[in-house]
């Protein structure tokens, strides 16, 4: 059985990506996974999915900057050597960083593996029996081409969805209006995006305003967002043959 391992930042990422993988790419929820991975604490989140003879393990590492500690605690590097894992995909927020800087930070946590933003890289490694095998890596930085985090992706996606676009634009305008005098803190892009998303969902679904993202995420038809479709295109290769960038084969 082919195993795909996807590490993302937080529970919101897990929920949105899991929704997308199930709705668009036909993955189904499973109660457990063959690697035996489970959340170590309340901040981590592990979702197991399956499709045909593949399984996909989607792990929320517990937030921004927690990739290295998650990799260490869960012995991910050892797992990659010892278990039959076809690929490792990492999905992380761009915030204010460049692709290169993010890739370097992630690479530090992955013993010897090369990872690049926006490309499947085939890494040849030696397992503990001395046999060679290959693991594909992919770094998906969100948003793709602007500063921000998952909330920016959600805002862009909502603007694409005809039924949601009017409301999200109104909410964005409202949040912008608060920046000057009332809540200057919202001048920070991440905070303003979080506030926009939070406000949008509260208005959209007032009865669930105090509930978690888990309740809200399934109430939007994310499949009709073109920007989200473009951003999540790399997911089509999970559980399938990857289109490896051969110019970077085994680059260390």
């Amino acid at each position: 059985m082919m195993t795909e391992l996807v590490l993302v930042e937080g529970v919101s990422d897990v929920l949105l990506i899991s929704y997308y993988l199930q709705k668009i790419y036909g993955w189904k929820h499973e109660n457990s996974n063959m690697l035996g991975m489970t959340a170590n604490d309340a901040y981590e989140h592990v979702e197991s999915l399956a499709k045909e003879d593949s399984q996909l393990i989607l792990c929320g590492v517990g937030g921004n900057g927690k990739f290295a500690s998650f990799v260490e605690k869960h012995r991910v590097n050892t797992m990659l050597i010892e278990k039959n894992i076809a690929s490792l995909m990492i999905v992380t927020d761009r915030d204010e960083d460049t692709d290169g800087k993010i890739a370097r930070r992630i690479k530090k946590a992955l013993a010897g593996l090369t990872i690049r933003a926006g490309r499947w890289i085939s890494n040849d490694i030696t397992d503990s029996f001395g046999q060679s095998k290959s693991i594909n890596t992919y770094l998906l930085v969100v948003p793709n081409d602007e500063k921000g985090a998952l909330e920016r992706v959600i805002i862009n996606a909502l603007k694409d969805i005809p039924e949601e676009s009017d409301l999200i634009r109104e909410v964005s305008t409202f949040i912008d209006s608060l920046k000057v005098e009332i809540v200057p803190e919202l001048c920070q892009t991440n905070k303003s995006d979080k506030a926009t998303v939070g406000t949008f969902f509260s208005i959209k679904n007032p009865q669930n305003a105090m509930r978690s993202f888990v309740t809200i995420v399934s109430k939007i038809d994310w499949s009709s967002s073109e920007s989200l479709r473009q951003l999540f295109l790399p997911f089509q290769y999970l559980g399938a043959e990857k289109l490896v960038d051969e110019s970077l084969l085994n680059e260390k």
Partner: protein
Amino acid sequence: MGHINSIEINRFRGIKQLEITDFSNINLIVGDNNSGKTTFLEAIQLLFAQTQIGSIKKIINQRSVLSPDRNSFYVSFIKMFDIEQLADQLEFDIYAESSNGILRFQLSGQEKSISGDEALKLSSLSPREKMQYKRSSAFLPEAAKVFIGSIVSQINKKIAEQNIRCTSLDTGLTGGALKKEVQYIPSFGHMRYDLLQNIVDNPEYKKLTIDILRQFDSEIADICYTKADDGTYLETIITKNGSSMPFSVYGDGIKKILYILNKLFASSDSILLIDEIETGLHKKYYDTLFPVVFALANKLNVQLFIATHSNEAIDAILKYGDYENEIEKKDPIKVITLKKIKSPDSNVVARNVTGKYVYDNKKVFEFEVRL
């Protein structure tokens, strides 16, 4: 005689080439069925068989311990070679580094087709057996096989060579056997009895054994040989109320424990090989038995190679490593997983990791030790 630090096996049975280094005092040999675990244990024994034909015969016969099939002896013999080798260039070679120097065992030669009459002449059958064949010539096959070759054995700087011949009519090999330098416990060996020979004459070992047995059955007072009505000697347990109970009335567990202890006492400053340690033992005994065996092996300076299929046995053995205790110390356990691979050529490969590595991985994910 010492312990071995590393081994290299070339073209022996299903192993094309295998090198394992850095053995510890307790070495767990794990893997799927037919992955080479028993072959690995046989290779260690051959290293110490030197050029003694009788010792080699015993090693070949171990695989059929409960029902020795004399008629298939030649097949068992010739299957020691890699089946992909040419008949006129058969050779296998086992090399090890031990605490007392180099050990090497090499068997080479060629297999030829001969007539049944020629095979009868060349065979090591007794004159009486040969006569039986001649009397009933219908049983003598028209075509037969003969292997003619030589053994080269090296122990440190001492090299010895011995010619060897075996025909497909032979039911064994004729020659001397050494007093076993490496003790071997086959998976069902405890069912053959002979469990007390190294225990009853040594008061210290006997007391220790009785103390250990009492942890499993508090009614046990003594172990000894008693004379049966027909004059034969029976291995017997005396209970606290004075009853004599032959071993046959006890279950496999007590016999297995005694068998392990008996062999352990005979392995002082040497090596004990245990194939499928879990056979005959209920898992509830593991936590009591294994620490005793390991502590005793440590005291007697015995290096252990333990083959197992059992995840429960592996977990119980790893407890001896005391890995929750963070104190830095040399890991007493190595876990060697053997795996058969088909590509690019059929071979056996090994993963050789510490007990702590296995313990730490098993805590975090589904780390399959046995494969």
